[in-house]
Structure formats: structure tokens, C-alpha cells
């Protein structure tokens, strides 16, 4: 993602989600960061985008936060099933061009559409270990 000035939504304000939101925002994108946990949202610092507290699996709430116009969405909650559901919603209902999700269990990638880009921290760590070990 190198474009700027597009509407983006990030769901899940943990470390990964909030840092992705900051990156997008620093690249001059309009970002809405969503989490259902108020304290998580409150802990995010140095983020200049919008924040919203609520349940992203409620489509009405997603629409209030501009999912219809979003060009990029990133689902980084700690629940794989929620991320997969939201990816399908954006892919099949809103036709969002760019979709990223986090998967703790990369085997679940099998049921995810090829339009969706999966980020699997476990697999990445293993690759990194492999590279450092062989050095």
C-alpha cells in the first residue's frame, strides 16, 4: 500500500492494529480505528486519525464508520473467526478493493478468498527464526 489520501478502516486496537493505523495515517490516509474495548482505544498514542468504540461485526456500525467508501480495510482483532467473517463481508458485500486480516492459525487461510491478504504472525516468526538461524 503506497497510495495516500484514501479512506481506510482498521479494526482491533491492539499493538498490531494500532501501529498499522498509525502507519496508514502517517501516509496521509483517512483512518478510522475501531475496537469494542474502550480502554484499548484510549491507550493508543500519537495517532491522528479517528477512533470509534463499538462492535465491528455489526454492519450498521461499520457503515456509520464509512465502510462503503473505504478503499482499504485491515482486520487485526485477536479472533481469527471475526477477522475471516469481516473479510468476507467486505469482499462480498462492500467489494472493498484492499483487505488485510491477521490470522493466528494460518491453516485457516484455506477458507479465505484469494482477494484477501493474510498476515500470520506465527508464520512470520518462524521464517525469521529460520533466516537468523541459518546465518
Amino acid at each position, binding site marked *: 500500500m503506497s497510495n495516500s489520501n484514501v479512506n481506510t478502516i482498521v479494526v482491533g486496537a491492539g499493538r498490531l492494529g494500532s501501529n498499522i493505523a498509525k502507519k496508514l495515517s502517517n501516509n496521509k490516509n483517512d483512518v478510522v480505528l475501531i475496537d469494542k474495548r474502550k480502554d484499548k482505544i484510549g491507550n493508543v498514542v500519537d495517532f491522528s486519525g479517528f477512533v470509534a468504540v463499538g462492535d465491528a*461485526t*455489526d*454492519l*450498521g456500525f461499520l457503515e456509520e464508520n464509512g465502510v462503503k467508501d473505504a478503499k482499504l480495510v485491515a482486520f487485526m482483532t485477536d*479472533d*481469527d*473467526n*471475526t477477522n*475471516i*467473517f469481516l473479510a*468476507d*463481508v467486505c469482499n*462480498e*458485500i462492500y467489494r472493498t478493493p484492499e483487505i488485510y486480516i491477521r490470522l493466528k*492459525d494460518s*491453516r*485457516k487461510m*484455506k*477458507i479465505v478468498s484469494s482477494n484477501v491478504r493474510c498476515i500470520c504472525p506465527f508464520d512470520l516468526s518462524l521464517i525469521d527464526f529460520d533466516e537468523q538461524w541459518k546465518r
Partner: protein
Amino acid sequence: MKIVIADGMHEADYIISKYNSKANDLIVINEQEDACKYLSVSNGIPVMCARCTRESDLREAGAEDADLFIALSKNDMTNYVACKTAKQLLGAKRCIATVVNPKNVEVFRKLGIDSVLSSTYLLGEQIRNAASIENLINTLSLEDNKIIILEVRITPDLNVEGKTLKEINISDIGSISTVTRNQKVIIPNGNTELKANDKVLIVTTEESREAVTKVFQRKK
């Protein structure tokens, strides 16, 4: 019929007891250990304690090629992913997901889940039906709710007003037993015409109740 029952406690117990026979091959998988024990002991069948959203767990449970896959978790997202996995990777012919949030009924359907059930959603539909036929004054049930007796007051805005029983023809779903007109009780026949202010007694079954109430709805 091969039926996979994923998660759920009392709901799962009910479905298992209903379909536990030689004619059916029941595969029960549950994430919660206490639920596994309970379902296994109360139904005398093996229950696999594993995750229904994991392809490998489902395969280990023997859930491939199910005729029916039922996801009963309290977590809607779990049910969505379980059904998707069963359908796409394990060849399930038909999937049913239950949902807690009634708004998910339409969303899940749009995303390709064959059947989506929500008790709140059904309640909402019932209320809508009931509201459209407020003329339906009394109901009485007999034989453990197997027999339902409905009393309907005929008003000019009902579809059936001015029609004969032959024209209304509900013989498949119930029978119009009596018509009370000007305090006189008539045993109707096919040529009896329903008029405004009549009170009609209909005998039906629980299953056909909705179909009967539809016949007595207001004109659209």
C-alpha cells in the same frame, strides 16, 4: 443421514436426542469439556472434544461429507467459520448456523450459509404475524400443544370476508369447525359464507398454525 452437531449445550442435547437412531450417523464435536461430558453421558454417544472451526479437528471427528452440519455455538463468528469450513473443505451438503445477533441472519445468508436461525429473529417474525391479525382473539392448545384451536373475528378488512369456505379452502392445514353469527352457532359447510362480525373457530396443528393465520390476514 450423516449429521454433524458442533458446539452448543442444551440445544445440542435436544437435537442429538431427536436424531439419535440407527438411521442417522451422528458426529458430535464440542469445544467445552463440560459440555462434551454432559452430551456424551446423557445420550450415550461419543463426543469429540475439539474445535469445530479447525479443519483438522473436524476431520479427526469424522465430519467429512455430512448431509447436514449444524453449528450451535453461542459465538456467531464461530458458527460462521465452522459452517464455511464444513462446506468448503469437508463437503457438507447443507449447513445450518444459529446466531445470537438477529442482524446476522441476513448477512450470513448473503455470505452463502444455507440456513441461519435466530430465536430472536423468529420471535420478531411471530410478532409481526400476530400484529397483522389482531382479530385472532383466543387460542387454546390441547394434547401438549399438538392441537391448536384459534378463534378469529371476521372484519371487513380480512381477505376471507365475503368468501365461502370452499373458496377459502384450508382443508390441508386445518378445519373451520363453527361459525358464530348473531349468537347462533352454525356448523358450516363448503357453501357457508364468512361475514363481518362472525366468530370462527378453527382447529389446526402447531405446525400449520402459521399457515392458517396467514389465510386470515388483513387485505394488503
